[in-house]
């Protein structure tokens, strides 16, 4: 990569940092209306739903990979396992799947 790559990194760094920093520094000390506070409290769960679906099904060209991976992740998570176990467990299930069935 040439010099353009480093300019691109700087650009990416700036546009990634601004949406992170502006609300945290400018909203401090200002009381938001209760309705907006409630919407903000809803956001973590909504954003996770949107980040997971439908992308989880398309991690590989073979869609079964995504379906099995998603089933494994939700299955393990519903047993009450922590995040670490869910991630490593899903990888293990898919590794077994691709060794045995592909």
């Amino acid at each position, binding site marked *: *990569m040439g010099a353009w*790559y480093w300019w*691109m*990194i*700087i*650009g*990416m*760094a700036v*546009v*990634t*940092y601004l*949406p*992170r*920093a502006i*609300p*945290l*520094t400018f*909203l*401090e000390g200002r009381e*938001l209306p209760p*309705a907006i*506070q409630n*919407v*903000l*409290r*809803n*956001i*973590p*769960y*909504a*954003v*996770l*739903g*949107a*980040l*997971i*679906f*439908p*992308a989880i099904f398309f*991690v*590989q060209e073979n869609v079964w990979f*995504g379906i099995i*991976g998603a089933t*494994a*992740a939700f299955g393990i*998570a519903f047993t009450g*396992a*922590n*995040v*670490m176990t*869910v*991630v490593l*467990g*899903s*990888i293990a299930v*898919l*590794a077994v*799947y*691709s060794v045995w069935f*592909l």
Partner: protein
Amino acid sequence: MDDRGFVSGIKAGTSIAVGYFPIALTFGLLAKTTGLSLLEATAMSIFVYAGAAQYISLSLIAAGVSPLLIVLNTFVVNIRHFLMTASLNEKMQPEKKWVKALYAFGVTDESFSVLATQKGGKLRTSFGIGVIVIAYGSWVIFTAVGHLIGANLPHFLQAAMSIALYAMFVGLLVPSMRGNRKVVSLALIAALINSFFYFTGWLTTGWAILVSTLASAIFIEIISSKGRRT
């Protein structure tokens, strides 16, 4: 206020660090196949530190897309952090502006989810910094490790590791879903709207996530505020 400090933050962030391990490793590996040097790949993780955007930028670099467009795309994919840090502001203890500007850099989907879903009152800054430091360290170190050793990993393992990012999101969401219909509805509605945009191609990924998140969060707030009034 919650009284846990830096060390408890490190502990709470360990699950992110372990979850980042395969994701960063895969990023390092893909960066190498895209033609980035070890320094270039690691620098992106050090300065940008945004998993989804970094993955997307690799495929755009490989496709020969102009750097300016890649920067613009990065912005669109990461606008969602605007919602998260606005939401996080409600959860963190009041703090000096420069301190918040500093730890704002470490707010990712995962560190945000871990912080925002902590039970109890406002979180101390030191707890937040603990979560962020260990997650960031893991991301940077394993990007470099992935670039160094990635290509030697067996192919089946590389493929299996592509689920890691999403499995982590699932692991963050499910504990809050159990026995909470509101959380289930929030996630489900956002998932449906986002899938709609995906399959129709009406919005690019970044905008689709932003719009579906907002739509779901506002819709559920309207429904539940009606429920409170009656």
